[in-house]
Structure formats: structure tokens, C-alpha cells
């Protein structure tokens, strides 16, 4: 049980704790979860910290109920979050789809561990990357962020809330066992320095209010329960007013809206960090913890005068199609380094038009990919 109270600008803190503190900083005032290694510290910190700021923590009977409660709380107007790992993330899939369909902002942290199945509870993997995009039934458009440091755990959780509120959609923070269980010194911003986005509120008279209004921004203003707007929310395909429909035109309109609010805003949602990409012919494409080894590796390569660079998508979903197409123009070789059997590499290959060689560097034996491994791969393939 971690009892330190939030304090001081510069602190040595655990990745999972940074995530919890990021949530509080973002305005999260409700957490429902179910313990699972290696995410549990997030819940434990919030059980301690949330009531101090007037927030609510509840341990539910399982992960399904956890995300349900989170959705319920968000609908009641409170920014809400849950945290889990692989098996719990699989159980949450039905409700991730519900939150998406019902356009309920909420944040889901998945601290990835070794899979499949119970797998390796205390070891790392990055093998839920595709699941974050395709885990629920029906067409779904995910937003997922991948921190690679303790500081990013803090900042990306805040950003996850901001994106979630801005686009009225669930946002996933895809962290992992190493980042989650790592301690680093973090310099915390003053709360005034933190940019917070809150869901847009309706301005119309309740009689005119449509909870799922279709507008050119694809995001409808959101009244909370109890605010005087009485509307219906359902996971059935529905009209802008929230009532079920089976009219093909209305169905298409709804599903297009869900899609467009992500695909039309890729530029706003996606953040990419580059290193040496101005003149690189070879890129290492890596996200989350692996990007750190990759950064070191491209530095090693540069020392050997190899024109290598790093592309680190901070946002893994939506995939930055246009950006990558553009980058691939410039590149001879992309090495996609992941702690799985090859997931995001498929996306790189998808946008590749055949000009660039795309090679995978995959590790899935519970150990990290080292800078040296990446450097060797650069040397071999170049």
C-alpha cells in the first residue's frame, strides 16, 4: 500500500503511480477496477488518493463490471477510468464497444503483460496492440497511446482524458509491465501548466437537445444525467436522438460519424516523435518501451555514420497512414521493432507501396529488445 501523498515537483515515482496521478491531474474523479498484475498499483494509488480530492474509487466484482461502472459514472458527468491487463482487457471488449457506440468518454489503461491467456503476469509484452484496435465486435475505431517512460505515463494519461473528452470516445493507454513497474525521476508541472479539455456541453434548450446530434465536427455536445436533458443511451444502432433505428440511412450515418470523428482528426490525435529523421534512409519504427532501445540504437548507428533515424508513434491508433506513406518515400528500409510476433508491422506494410523494405525485429520471450539487437539488425539489413 503506497501512502505517499502527491507533492513536490521532482519525484522518483513508479510508472503505474504516474498513470494514477496523471488521471487525477486530468480531472478523473472516478475509478472502478479489478486487481490484475501488473496494473494493480494504479488501483491501489487511486484507492488512496481519489477520496482526498473528492473522487470515488470502487473495486468491482470483475473487469466487465468495472468498465460498466466507469461508463455509468461518465454518463453521470464524472471523468472516469479503469486499468487492467491482458485477461481483463479481453473481458472488457464488449463494453469498449458499448462506450464507442454510445460515445461515452472514458480511459482504459492496459498495462500489457505476456500473453496469450494467463501467459506471464509479471513479464512484458506488446502483444495487445492489434487487440486495442480490433478487440470488440463490429467496426471500431480506436485511440491508443503508448508511453515509453514514467513521465509519459503521467502526461499520456492526461492526454488520454483530453482526447476522450474532446471526441467523446473511449481512449486506451497501452502501457506495459516494464514502464508500469519502473521508477524514474519525473518533473511534474504545476497544475496551471496542464492543459485540460472537458467535454462540450449543449447550449440548446432541452427540448431540442440530441445526445447524438450529427454535425460537421462529428462530436455531439454531451449533457450528463441529472442536468435537465433527458435522453436515451443505447448500444443498439440509434438515431441522433438516441432511440433505436433499423433504417439503413440512419445506420450508415451513425457508423460514418463514429468513423469520421477518428479518421478526420488523425492529425490532431496522432503524435509522433522523430529522431534523426531529417536525412535518414533507414528508420527504426518502435513504440512504447522499445522506442528507448531504438533511440539508443540509432545513436549508435549515427556514431558509425549510418543514416538511421527513429519513428516513435506516441499514438499507436489511429495509425498515421499519410505520415507514414510520406516517410516511406524517403526511406530504403524500415525496421519495425516490437515485443510481439509482428503486429504494427502489418500496418507499416499496408501503407508501404513496395518501394521500401520493411523488416520486423520481434521478441516475445519476456525480455526487452536491446539497443544492440536493433543496431545489429540495422547493420545486417542496411
Amino acid at each position, binding site marked *: 500500500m503506497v501512502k505517499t501523498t502527491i507533492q513536490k515537483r521532482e519525484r522518483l515515482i513508479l510508472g503505474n503511480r504516474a498513470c494514477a496521478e496523471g488521471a487525477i491531474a486530468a480531472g478523473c474523479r472516478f475509478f472502478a477496477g479489478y486487481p490484475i498484475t501488473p496494473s494493480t498499483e494504479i488501483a491501489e494509488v487511486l484507492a488512496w488518493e481519489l477520496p482526498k480530492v473528492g473522487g470515488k474509487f470502487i473495486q468491482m466484482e470483475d473487469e466487465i463490471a468495472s468498465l460498466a461502472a466507469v461508463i455509468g459514472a461518465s454518463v453521470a458527468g464524472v471523468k472516469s477510468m479503469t486499468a487492467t491487463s491482458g485477461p481483463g482487457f479481453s473481458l472488457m471488449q464488449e463494453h469498449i464497444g458499448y462506450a464507442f457506440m454510445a460515445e461515452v468518454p472514458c480511459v482504459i489503461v492496459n498495462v500489457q503483460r505476456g500473453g496469450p491467456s494467463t501467459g506471464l503476469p*509479471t513479464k512484458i509484452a506488446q502483444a495487445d496492440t492489434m487487440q486495442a484496435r480490433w478487440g470488440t465486435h463490429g467496426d471500431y475505431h480506436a485511440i491508443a497511446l503508448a508511453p515509453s517512460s514514467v513521465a509519459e505515463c503521467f502526461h499520456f494519461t492526461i492526454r488520454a482524458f483530453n482526447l476522450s473528452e474532446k471526441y467523446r470516445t473511449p481512449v486506451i493507454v497501452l502501457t506495459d509491465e516494464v514502464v508500469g513497474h519502473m521508477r524514474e525521476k519525473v518533473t511534474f508541472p504545476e497544475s496551471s501548466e496542464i492543459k485540460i479539455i472537458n467535454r462540450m456541453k449543449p447550449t440548446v434548450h432541452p427540448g431540442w437537445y440530441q445526445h447524438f446530434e450529427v454535425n460537421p465536427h462529428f462530436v455531439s455536445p454531451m449533457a450528463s444525467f441529472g442536468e435537465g436533458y433527458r435522453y436515451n443511451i443505447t448500444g443498439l444502432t440509434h438515431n441522433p436522438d438516441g432511440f433505436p433505428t433499423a433504417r439503413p440511412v440512419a445506420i450508415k450515418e451513425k457508423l460514418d460519424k463514429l468513423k469520421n470523428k477518428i479518421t478526420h482528426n488523425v492529425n490532431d490525435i496522432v503524435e509522433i516523435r522523430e529522431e534523426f529523421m531529417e536525412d535518414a534512409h533507414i528508420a527504426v519504427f518502435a513504440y512504447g518501451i522499445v522506442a528507448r532501445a531504438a533511440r539508443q540504437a540509432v545513436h549508435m548507428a549515427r556514431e558509425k555514420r549510418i543514416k538511421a533515424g527513429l519513428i516513435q508513434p506516441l499514438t499507436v491508433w489511429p495509425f498515421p497512414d499519410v505520415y507514414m506513406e510520406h516517410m516511406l518515400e524517403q526511406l530504403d528500409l524500415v525496421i519495425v521493432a516490437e515485443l510481439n510476433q509482428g503486429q504494427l508491422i502489418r500496418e507499416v506494410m499496408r501503407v508501404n507501396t513496395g518501394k521500401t523494405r520493411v523488416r520486423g525485429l520481434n521478441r516475445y520471450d519476456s525480455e526487452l529488445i536491446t539497443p544492440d539487437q536493433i543496431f545489429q539488425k540495422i547493420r545486417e539489413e542496411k
Partner: protein
Amino acid sequence: MVFAGTVLAEAIGVEDGKNVCQTQSYGPEARGGASRSDLVVSSGEIYYPKPLKLDLLLALTQEACDTYFPALKEDGVLIVDSGLVDQLPDHKVHGFPFTQIARDQIGTSMVANIIALGAIAALTKIVSRKGLLEAIKKRAPKGTEERNLKAAQLGFELTQRKKRARKKR
């Protein structure tokens, strides 16, 4: 080991002002706590979060010593619990019976690793003595502050004494 690793990281990172990245390895399940703690220290940005080659290895069991010794740099420092590690690698070794001392002088073997931290502060420049004591004050669970501080002091003095003894010889 996580507690000791965290104290050291806190001392180096926050008190002494360097960048640190502390990671750990767990057994197959979380409950047991970690059995190994790694620390990377740098004045610049830390990229890869795990040490590739060790500058310092503190091994409290024979198994740990055997497993991790190969990663120690040529000129790295090896500190072992001489009461528990008897097969020493061919290397300059600092051995102290940490566990023994902890049990005998503080009454619980649990502070053995904090004594070891004291020894590290005395033997190397990795961490300052002041930083270490501050970090202990901050991180020790309520009620254990005193005995942990005492343990660190003990480790420090122990080493000084040995150094002095060696000098005398």
C-alpha cells in the same frame, strides 16, 4: 530488493540530482515481490531503461552472484554478502556479512540490504551519504525509519573501518 533499489534510486535521483531509472524482475507471480532490482544512472537522458553492463553489482545470494556476475564490467565493483555467498568469482570483491550483522546488531535480517546501501555509499561515488539518509527518511515505511537509518550508518561505518584496517595493514 525493491525497497533497497528504490531508496538508492531516490537518493541518486532526487537527492543527488541525477537521472535514474530503476526496474525490477519479479518471480512468476506478483505477490512474492521482486527478486532483482536494476538501476541506471546518468546525468543525461536515459534511453534504454535496463543496465547492459554493470558498474556495480550487489549480490546477497550465491545464485544472484552467479547469474549476474558475467554482466559486471571489467572494472566494475562487486559487493556480496559474505555470509551467504562463499563461492566468489575471480574478481576484486567487497564482502561483508550483511545479513549476519543485520541480525546481530539490529535484530532483523530484513535490513541487510540497507546496510549494503551504506556500504555502497562508503565504497563508491554512486550515491552521497547525505542523499542516502534523506532517501531512507522519505521512503522507509512508518515505524521503520530509525532502524533503517541505523542500518545505513552501520554499513557506512563498517566499510570505513575496513578501509582503515586495510590501510593500517
